[in-house]
């Protein structure tokens, strides 16, 4: 038994091979064992692309370690492939010397041809620089499943559990977790339970007895703070955060949404929680989803609409109405590759400027962004807090990587969660010309500039609101030019004023004399911080800060940025936060961009920081950065 500190494993196969299940289960085994971990599912937009083709390859990468890690890993140390297409699609990512576990039964001529191989890569020398383990997984699975009486063609479908068994042995994972999960998941079909269990055990035993591998590996548990943990994806944490926000605010959730990848899971999750008084509507389209959420908000509910990509375009007009109506509303945008349909299952951060400016007229909207899968929980509560307190639509940005990626999460104590309860208007707040009590829907709170939330059913507060410009105070329709100017400034000031009510941005600059600041937002947090840590290990000084609030910015952001000659902003777009920061603060903010549909590699952030450090010192930025080994682990 050899002890290692971390490993990155990628399971890859055909869309129908069950690679996501395999990856999920390996993750669960590792979580229970106490390793720190980070995952990256990667699957095609097509449900079942033609079997055996490159287009149909589905993969799941998991990074496990005995210490705190931030990212799912730049490159897999171990690649498990169920067919030739999976090998061809992923081999370029495996560093020389890496381990490849192959289902050799899948490498027949037809499969090789479908994958575009003219010769068998196992024998033509193209894998000579890797450690290749060939296992006839299909045949061994069929053999193992014989006692179930399943036909060989059906038994073959359990081969992903055989693969999971092999890798579970290789990394000394506990088997009970998966066996229990199989029994629960497939409980209604005893043949499937038996077949999957037998295949899993056969794979595990094969690893132990076949003497194929030199040894099994052990990865000690990571040091985690005391507490109760669970493994969450971003979408799950976000859905739970919305449930929590509803409870903390004492306002029932109404979710109006239209199915769209990769946001649909939030709709699925919330649809289950009816006992929390949550009402969900799968609307006829994106527009109806947010329209219904806004109607529910008018009635005193916590109106939410979740979407992605093109769905955000369709919601723009209603977000503008919500800005004018000054009603609380939450829009969750799980960003994916664009433009148009773009890359539905791949991650990107290219909706920031859309969230910021994507409405006609001046229609400012607060924006918050999640930084890790579990942070989706906290940011959901923060978004709801702002929406309720300031009676405004809020856009919460997540992304495809956070949505489907997972990490261990220490569960918060319920009593430590913030009180975000709100108040409804119950009494008239003004007098009519004749001295009668009157209700002015646009009479603002002097501190927050928020207007009262008076819901139908409240006697004496009957009022009409709409998208036409309203008179300051009374809320009656007004075309008066001076009033319009007043209202434009009031709406802007209300959103800008939220800066007084959010935390300052924290800048980590251990020596206090760094010349380069790395500023991240959203899911680039992980790669940015890991890159900073690696650079610091080379003895360089670099500062790091992260933004959760993107509109308004924290009030000290300008001061922080101006302390550094150079600011590097890694972002999965073509330079959106850097535009905002340059426009707002006149600082030399550089973008490091990545629009490949996957998270940043730590190495590229590291390289970019070194380049910028060189630039500050007046050197050419061409020398390669120290390798990850030299720089130490991330």
């Amino acid at each position, binding site marked *: 038994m050899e002890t290692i500190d971390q490993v990155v494993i990628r399971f890859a196969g055909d869309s129908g091979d069950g690679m996501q299940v395999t990856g999920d289960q390996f993750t669960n085994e590792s979580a229970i064992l106490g390793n720190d971990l980070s995952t990256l599912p990667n699957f095609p937009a097509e449900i079942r692309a033609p079997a055996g083709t490159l287009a149909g390859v589905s993969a799941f990468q998991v990074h496990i370690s005995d210490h705190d890690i931030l990212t799912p890993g730049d490159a897999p140390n171990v690649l498990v492939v169920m067919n030739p297409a999976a090998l061809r699609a992923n081999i370029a990512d495996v560093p020389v010397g890496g381990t490849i576990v192959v289902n050799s039964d899948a490498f027949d001529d037809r499969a090789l041809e479908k994958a575009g191989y003219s010769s068998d890569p196992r024998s033509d020398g193209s894998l000579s620089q890797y450690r290749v383990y060939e296992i006839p997984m299909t045949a061994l699975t069929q053999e193992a499943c014989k006692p179930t009486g399943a036909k060989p063609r059906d038994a073959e479908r359990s081969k992903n559990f055989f693969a999971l068994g092999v890798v579970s042995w290789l990394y000394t994972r506990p088997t009970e977790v998966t066996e229990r999960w199989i029994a629960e998941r497939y409980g209604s079909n005893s043949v499937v339970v038996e077949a999957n269990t037998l295949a899993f055990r056969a794979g595990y035993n094969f690893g132990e007895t076949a003497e194929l591998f030199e040894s099994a590996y052990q990865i000690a548990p990571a040091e985690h703070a005391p507490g109760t943990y*669970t493994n969450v994806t971003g979408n799950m944490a976000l859905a739970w955060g919305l*449930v929590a926000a509803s409870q903390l605010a004492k306002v029932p959730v109404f979710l109006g949404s239209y199915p769209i990848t990769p946001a649909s899971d939030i709709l699925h999750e919330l649809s289950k929680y009816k006992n*929390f*008084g949550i009402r969900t509507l799968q609307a006829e389209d994106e527009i109806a989803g947010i329209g*219904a959420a806004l109607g529910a908000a008018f009635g005193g509910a916590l109106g939410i609409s979740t979407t992605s990509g093109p769905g955000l375009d369709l919601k723009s007009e209603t977000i503008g109405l919500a800005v004018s109506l000054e009603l609380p509303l939450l829009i969750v945008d799980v960003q994916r590759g664009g433009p148009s349909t773009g890359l539905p299952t791949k991650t990107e951060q290219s909706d920031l400027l859309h969230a910021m400016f994507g409405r006609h007229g001046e229609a400012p909207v607060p924006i918050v962004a999640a930084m890790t899968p579990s942070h989706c929980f906290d940011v959901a509560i923060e978004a709801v807090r702002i929406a309720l307190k300031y009676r405004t639509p809020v856009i919460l940005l997540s992304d495809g990587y956070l949505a489907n990626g997972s990490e261990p999460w220490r*569960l918060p104590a319920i009593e430590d969660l913030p009180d975000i309860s709100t108040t409804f208007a119950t009494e008239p707040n003004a007098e009519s010309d004749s001295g009668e009590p009157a209700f002015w829907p646009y009479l603002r709170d002097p501190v927050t500039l928020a207007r009262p939330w008076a819901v139908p*059913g409240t006697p004496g507060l009957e*009022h009409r609101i709409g998208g036409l410009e309203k008179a300051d105070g009374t809320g009656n329709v007004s075309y008066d030019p001076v009033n319009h100017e007043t209202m434009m400034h009031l709406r802007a000031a209300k959103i800008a004023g939220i800066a007084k009510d959010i935390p300052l941005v924290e800048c980590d600059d251990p020596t206090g004399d760094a010349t380069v600041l790395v500023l991240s937002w959203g899911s680039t947090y992980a790669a940015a911080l890991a890159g900073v840590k690696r650079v610091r290990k080379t003895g360089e000084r670099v500062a790091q800060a992260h933004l959760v609030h993107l509109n308004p910015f924290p009030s000290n952001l300008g001061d922080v940025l101006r302390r550094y000659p150079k600011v590097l902003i890694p972002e999965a777009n073509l330079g959106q936060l850097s535009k905002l920061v340059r426009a707002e603060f006149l600082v030399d903010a550089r973008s490091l961009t990545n629009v490949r549909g996957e998270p940043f590699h730590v190495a590229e952030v590291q390289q970019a920081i070194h380049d910028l450090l060189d630039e500050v010192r007046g050197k050419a930025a061409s020398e390669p950065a120290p390798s990850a080994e030299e720089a130490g682990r991330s």
Partner: protein
Amino acid sequence: MTDVAVPVTARKDWMSDQDVRWCPGCGDYSILAAVQFLLPELGIRRENTVFISGIGCAARFPYYMNTYGMHSIHGRAPAVATGLAVTRPDLDVWVVTGDGDALSIGGNHLMHCLRRNVNLTILLFNNQIYGLTKGQYSPTSEVGKVTKSTPFGSLDTPFNPISLALGAEATFVARTHDMDRKHMMEVFRRAHAHKGASFVEVYQNCNVFNDGAFEQITGRAHREEMLIELEHGKPIRLGVDGHRGVIMDAQGRLKIVEVADVGEDALVVHDEEREDPGLAFALSRLSRGPYEPTPIGVFRSVERPDYGSLVDAQVLAAQARRGPGDLELLLKSGTTWTVG
């Protein structure tokens, strides 16, 4: 909500303090008056009444009602109203819309709120023209309509709003017109009393851009011979002393005949409660336009659980089965492990 009896109100109590700004002579005035005269008779509270509209001339309606109201965006009123009605079953939610708003830009939402049977009362003011944008043809304009955007005549076949509502699984479908306050009030009363989505098409004259569109059937001189008042359980008749009537011929088509020629027993008896919408649909196609004898009144009124009640039932069932939500249990619902 209190147990105190609903206060007695009069029309003026339902009028807001805002000046009504439709063009002088617009049919919208008489519809507004009919609603404001009716509401005091319904035993409902102002604070529990909400008017939601989209965009268009008709959509200014909520501003003139001393109730809660929202003037939303073009075509989306049924969607906004759906969210409100589903979360607040205690409210009376009305949607006021027009032919462009409901059938063109918002056609999708109208269809879906009808099939869901959301508890709404939907008044569609049909004037067969775009008024607020100053006179373009609408999805109910007749083919060949010459307007600013169709100088050589419009080419597209119009919608028949009643047929459309019936095809969209509406449970209550009716038609009335702006020249007859009493008829409007009765139809609106029925629509309000119906639990679920009630759809009412109101023929409404736009005296600026499409004056007299319905004159041939709703004008006082023509009404008796041209409007067919549908009455549940009664033979369908029209004209002075009901001298004409509607029969179904051997091919299943509805036809207008002289009652004297066929005998009263041959007439179709109106049945608004019939589950099969076929006859109601045939009645909606009896007239090809507002120049032929046209049925008004209630085409269809059937019972089907409204959407909000079904949603509530699921929520209550979940709470009865699993108890009220417990956040801590929820967070621990997956696999958990303890450190330290």
